[in-house]
């Protein structure tokens, strides 16, 4: 003990330049805007190690060496203030930081001031995230950060959301960023078993988030090594502040409606259309020689169609008069209220700070049967054990219940209801029940009425519940070893337990294929354990050399376990648990795991506050790769020059800040299945009740990381007292050794293999302009514009073309381009669908003549799913106690492929599917010039993939509009409140687009992948949400 005290003394002696007579200085710190006292402001005496913090009432008292000349005051969100020591008590008023140059930004394993950062890091603050009326926080990032494309697949609750930072860097490995919550990487995988992805990040209560930092360039992300190619999201949760204890209550409630609907035929048009399709088909049958004369063909077909129309009219002739005209689309939607309740408590003193919160979200989906509930709680505690040791824990528990609907490809998904005939009544008059529920002949559900399975039966007699229990927890210990040298050890876990339970009752037998009920139960558990142990050294030498260095290691292991069982034949719908199933049709369990061990280091050096250098490196070892290529090295370097600090610019008044920066770094992507490099046999080849094994994967022992080298150059600037800030970046990211799941000759017995082949690149520019347009005592107006253009191109992939649907990965093209025949409309002579041949002519050029033989036309690129550029434009206005925030967000230059077009806009070629109204323009008689071929029942006239189903996917959205009123401080003081705010908020209020489908922000959930993007297939539109909210702070 004595020894350590001696040591302490020694350190103090060494670090204090001069020891002199102590004196005490008192003072008070206030907010310059309204004079309120500011707690927790940190105060340091320049040139000595003495420091302190202000108390709850803003007062402080600091012991000073006689040599101390000035004090530095700093607080997050405020400009640093240096005050000369005069000997008298000080009264200091702090000015809010202008446009964030001094704001603290969280970076990997540390934090830094915005002005010192040389990488490209975007920050989204709590105020932009809090109370966004949506299930998951990613929605709140839309339009907020340049270069970050957020796309929700469809309007189903808690389902897949894609985040793309500066484009797609991979073709078959993952393209989602690494998500780090309070220093610990968390599970963000899809764990759904129903064919449509869920979003594991929906378990995070967005109102707990203090900030989200997005590491965009390679130099800032490289410290996360092999998982950083797609960028990194660093989520930091709220902490308590010493001094004031606060209770905050938040509540909002509102409704959600679809952003758009499609137009379908009414009964009169539908009947006419089907009868015309009968004639079209009869004519073809006659031409093909199946009938001796045209009239008998027409008679046959017309009888057939009329018979079907009668069947779909519940067995009567109502279709002739159009008496029944059901708008099935409306039946797919329901009233969708959303409410959220928040309560949090925060506070603390010098030693201990805490933040505790609870939230309940109760959301109904727009689609019938869709519902989401989430309960979450959090406790964050930070404690100063003694002068050199800090410790803390962040603990969060979430329980969510998602009442899901089937994936977009299922007959039972609500929106496939639009295929039903408008002449089919909602309620079958023969039974008084919903159409399809009961066949009077058999007493069982109808097997061929209506035309397809009625999805409403699923709402009545089926469910699919996904329940998630999630615990995020981490604990840290931070020890100050000597001045500036801190050792930090973090241990975190993310335990996700999900159960999925489904039951399809007797009414659903036409869809399930099981007459007496079928049930399923799946259980998934993912445990992520992580520890980070690192040293951080910060110091300033000779007042001009500033060093901030980090070195350490981290270890992560992930264990995934899955089990599931299915059963059929239940005694009645009253029994829904598998114990009652007469036939157990499936049982399975599986597990997999992977580990990652890493060593990392980073050094930031700053000279004279203007020359910045940052170097970092990480070594990652991953169990996912073969022993030959198990370790990878990921270096990065960045430089910056704050020109505005140079003497020749100091005198320029209108320029407050100008920093030029450039960076280079290498990051990796290991996001493939755990044992992708192995040659494997699987035991899932059981046959006739006997166990069997089959080759399941072909080996590639040389498999290694995908690596992305990124260059980033840009500037950050502030003008006119920092009322105008402009940031600009140009970047280029080249990905090599792509981890491609490449096709191999099927004659080998395998269809694909993971290989490192190919290159792709992303190039782009980003800029952000922030301005304070008006700032007066009662009126303040700020604007923020962000813009990002990205050009993605696959340079090479060994001649492969990947993609089994219309989307392809193809050399020389951006990822996921739509490749199909170019549609040329209807042949004016006979109504055949015709296509441009687009074959290469011998002399060069393309043959632009048309053909009615689909196979004679060449596949060409007919569109791309990713936008040329994305943008966001936010305006915030404060007038006295009112505030208004208007955010527009948009994407431009992408296309959407309506894969459902082959059924819903198919010239009646698919039989009795109801058609979109644009099909009324179909070819009818020779000479007609139209883009809709002749209707021909079951003749697939023009329904094969082609540009017929491509549309412009650009849109501009009024993403969010908030209008709020805060009770003024004078009133608040009287009623003993800290805060009272009411607001109206609307999400997706207006959408401007040429897309004729439900909503242009779409990707059919069942097929979504890196390659398959921008496809619409009966996909639910996004929600237009309007809520009224209230915040009370005590």
């Amino acid at each position, binding site marked *: *003990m004595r020894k*350590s005290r001696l*040591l302490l003394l020694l350190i103090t002696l060494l670090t204090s330049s001069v020891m002199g007579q102590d004196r005490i200085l008192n003072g008070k710190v206030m907010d310059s805007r309204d004079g309120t006292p500011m707690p927790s402001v940190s105060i340091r005496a320049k040139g000595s190690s003495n420091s302190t913090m202000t108390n709850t009432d803003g007062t402080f008292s600091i012991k000073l060496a006689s040599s101390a000349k000035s004090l530095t005051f700093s607080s997050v969100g405020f400009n640093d203030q240096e005050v000369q020591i005069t000997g008298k008590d000080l009264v200091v008023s702090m000015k809010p930081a202008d446009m964030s140059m001094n704001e603290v930004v969280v970076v990997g394993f540390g934090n830094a001031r915005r002005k010192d950062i040389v990488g490209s890091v975007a920050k989204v603050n709590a105020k932009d995230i809090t109370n966004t009326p949506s299930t998951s926080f990613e929605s709140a990032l839309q339009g907020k950060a340049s270069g970050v494309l957020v796309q929700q697949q469809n309007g189903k609750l808690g389902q897949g959301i894609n985040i793309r930072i500066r484009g797609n860097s991979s073709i078959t490995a993952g393209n989602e960023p690494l998500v780090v919550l309070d220093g610990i990487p968390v599970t963000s995988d899809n764990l759904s078993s129903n064919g449509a992805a869920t979003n594991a990040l929906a378990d995070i209560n967005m109102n707990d988030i203090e900030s989200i930092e997005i590491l965009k360039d390679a130099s800032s992300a490289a410290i996360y090594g092999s998982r950083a190619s797609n960028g990194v999201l660093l989520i930091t949760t709220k902490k308590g502040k010493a001094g004031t204890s606060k209770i905050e209550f938040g509540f909002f409630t509102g409704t959600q409606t679809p952003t758009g609907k499609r137009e379908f035929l009414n009964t009169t048009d539908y009947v006419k259309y089907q009868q015309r399709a009968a004639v079209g088909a009869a004519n073809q049958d006659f031409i*093909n*020689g*199946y009938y001796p004369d045209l009239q008998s063909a027409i008679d046959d077909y017309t009888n057939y169609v009329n018979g079907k129309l009668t069947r779909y009219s519940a067995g009567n002739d109502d279709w002739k008069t159009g008496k029944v005209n059901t708008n099935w689309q409306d039946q797919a939607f329901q009233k969708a209220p959303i409410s959220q309740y928040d309560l949090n408590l925060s506070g603390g003193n010098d030693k201990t700070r805490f933040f505790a919160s609870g939230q309940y979200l109760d959301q109904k989906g727009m689609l019938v049967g869709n519902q989401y509930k989430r309960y979450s709680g959090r406790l964050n505690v930070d404690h100063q054990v003694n002068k*050199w040791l800090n410790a803390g824990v962040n603990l969060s528990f979430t329980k969510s219940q998602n009442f899901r609907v089937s994936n977009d490809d299922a007959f039972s998904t609500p929106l496939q209801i639009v295929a039903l005939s408008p002449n089919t009544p909602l309620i079958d008059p023969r039974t008084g029940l919903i159409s399809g529920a009961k066949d009077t002949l058999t007493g069982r559900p109808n*097997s*061929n009425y209506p035309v397809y399975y009625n999805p409403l039966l699923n709402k009545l007699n089926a469910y699919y519940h996904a329940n998630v229990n999630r615990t995020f927890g981490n604990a840290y210990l931070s020890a100050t*070893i000597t001045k500036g040298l801190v*050792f930090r050890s973090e241990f975190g876990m993310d335990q996700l337990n999900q159960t999925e339970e489904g039951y399809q009752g007797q009414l659903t037998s036409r869809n399930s*294929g099981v*007459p007496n009920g079928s049930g399923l139960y799946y259980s998934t558990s993912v445990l992520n354990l992580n520890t980070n*142990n690192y040293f951080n050294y910060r110091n300033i030498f000779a007042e001009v050399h500033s060093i901030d260095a980090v070195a350490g*290691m981290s*270890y992560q292991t992930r264990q995934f376990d899955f089990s599931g069982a299915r059963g*059929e034949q239940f005694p009645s719908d009253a029994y829904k648990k598998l114990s009652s199933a007469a*036939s157990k*049709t*499936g049982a399975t369990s*599986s*597990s*997999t*795991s992977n580990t990652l*061990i890493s060593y990392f280091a980073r050094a930031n050096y700053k000279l004279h506050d203007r020359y910045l250098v940052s170097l970092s490196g990480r070594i990652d*070892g*991953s*169990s996912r790769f073969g022993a030959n290529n198990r370790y990878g090295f990921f270096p990065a370097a960045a430089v910056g020059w704050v020109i505005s600090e140079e003497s020749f610019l100091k005198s320029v008044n209108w320029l407050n800040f100008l920093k030029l920066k450039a960076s280079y770094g290498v990051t990796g992507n290991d996001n493939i299945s*755990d*044992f992708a490099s*192995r*040659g*494997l*046999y*699987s*035991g899932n*080849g*059981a*046959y*006739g*009740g*006997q*166990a*069997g*094994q*089959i*080759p*399941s994967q072909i*080996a590639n022992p040389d498999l290694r990381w995908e690596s992305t080298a990124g260059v980033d150059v840009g500037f950050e600037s502030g003008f006119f007292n920092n009322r105008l800030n402009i940031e600009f970046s140009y970047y280029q990211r080249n990905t090599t050794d792509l981890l491609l799941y490449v*096709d191999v*000759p*099927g004659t*080998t*017995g395998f269809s694909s293999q993971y290989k490192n082949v190919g290159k792709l690149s992303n190039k782009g520019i980003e800029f952000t302009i922030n301005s304070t347009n008006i700032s007066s005592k009662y009126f303040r107006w700020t604007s923020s514009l962000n813009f990002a253009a990205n050009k993605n191109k696959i340079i090479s992939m060994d001649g492969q073309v990947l993609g*089994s649907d219309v989307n392809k990965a193809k050399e020389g093209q951006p990822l996921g381009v739509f490749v199909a025949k170019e549609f040329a409309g209807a042949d004016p002579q006979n109504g055949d669908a015709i296509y441009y041949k687009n074959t290469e002519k011998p002399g060069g050029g393309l043959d632009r003549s048309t053909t009615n033989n*689909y*196979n004679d036309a060449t596949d060409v690129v007919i569109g791309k799913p990713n936008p040329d550029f994305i943008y966001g434009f936010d305006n915030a206005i404060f007038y006295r106690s009112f505030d208004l925030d208007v955010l527009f967000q948009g994407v431009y230059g992408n296309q959407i492929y309506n894969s459902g077009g082959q059924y819903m806009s198919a010239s009646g070629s*698919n039989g009795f599917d109801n058609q979109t109204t644009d099909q009324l323009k179909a070819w009818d008689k020779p000479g007609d010039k139209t883009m809709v071929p002749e209707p021909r029942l*079951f003749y697939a006239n023009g329904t*094969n993939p082609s540009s017929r189903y491509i549309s412009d996917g650009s849109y501009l959205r009024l993403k969010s509009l908030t209008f709020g009123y805060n009770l003024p401080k004078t009133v608040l003081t009287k009623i003993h409140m800290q805060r009272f705010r009411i607001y109206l908020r609307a999400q997706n209020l207006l959408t401007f687009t040429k897309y004729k489908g439900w909503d242009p922000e779409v990707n059919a959930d069942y097929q979504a992948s890196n390659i398959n993007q921008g496809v619409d297939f009966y996909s639910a539109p996004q929600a237009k949400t309007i809520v009224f909210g209230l915040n009370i702070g005590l």
Partner: protein
Amino acid sequence: MKRYIYKGTIIFSLLFTIACSKSLDTQPTSSIDQAEALKTSDDVQVALVGAYYDMGSADLFGGGSSVTAELLGDYNELNWTGTFQDMTQIKNKDITTNNVFITGTWLDAYKAINDVNNILGALSVVNASDAGRIEGEAKFIRASSLFELVRLFAKSWNDGTPSSNPGVPIILNPTKGITAADKVSRNSVQEVYDQVINDLKDAEGKLPLDNGFFANKAAAAAMLARVYLQKEDYPAAADAANRAINLGGAAGLSLTDKYADAFAIVFPPAPVGNTTEDVFAIQVNTSSGINAFSRYFSPYGRGDIQIKPAHFDLYEAGDDRLNLFYNAAGSDVTGKFDNRYGNIHTIRLAEMYLIRAEANFRTSGSVGANPADDINLIRRRVNLTPIADANLTLDIILHERKLELAFEGFNLHDIKRTKASIGSLNYNSPKLIFPIPKREIIVNPNLTQNEGY
């Protein structure tokens, strides 16, 4: 004390690092490394079971390649009302090269072939007492898959010159890694038939008389009869069919009493063992196997295929086979495949009687029985009057065959070998041959595409 912390953390970190490095060697739990898979006789046996599983894939002997053949071979007896556009293409004889079902048949067949090539490559570890049987079963699976490929993806035997017509690639070695040598070319139709026949002859020689529901001697002989018939080698076909009937009889096979019994239909759908008529059946139960016939033909599946009046016109009054059809709320359907958990009746004994009858009739022979007796065996079971020897014609035999084996995957191949036509399409129209899958042409430039694609 701080120094201790400092030292302690360094030591702790180092120790931890060493401990962690070891854990990078994680092992799969749901699969095993290929090097560990075929080490013992039992390992090879379970791999053989796995090969049957792959043989029964949805687009192969699970029924898919028969359903597509039925749709392609149909003129006006079937009504396709399904939503799968790629099936619609086949029905309309307007196939695109990326048709998923056709691609599936190709991939499934070569997967099964690679399965058994691995087994044939591992025979050295098999117990002597099992080696012959395992080799025979493996070759039966390889031959059956290759034959399915050659008759769907290549010109039929009687169309031009089989020795120069491109068939499909013959693969005889297991795939251990992907190399340039895997970009194989197509063997000729004749080479493929020769390989199929050699494999089946080997199989027939090595297989036991009785082998549970796995392939036995009778199954190999029966498949051989089917191949010879397609090749129009009638004497060999008659011989092989006769052997199949006798070998089957010795193993306890006989025609079921009622036609319907041959299809083992139960409600609700449930797994049923082989019938006495199953020379070879792909096993389906609730936990493994897919019945694609049921999927497309039965209202208990997707019910995409209905039967049109033209088909019913083919039957004589009183034909018991008519009783298998029923009206499912407005549409006529066949009930043959209503048990979706029922086995796939790949080779029924009835087919052997029909092959023997036809081959004997064409060669004026009477191997095993005279043609009229075989035909009348089939007719009597369905309550039809026997046909006198003198009145029997080839047309009657082919007609009987069409009705007896209706929708079971024979129609297209019978049309081709009898040089009949489908509407305006001749038996040798390129439209009646599957395209080589587009993905395959892209990854392997050595494959030539079929005419018309």
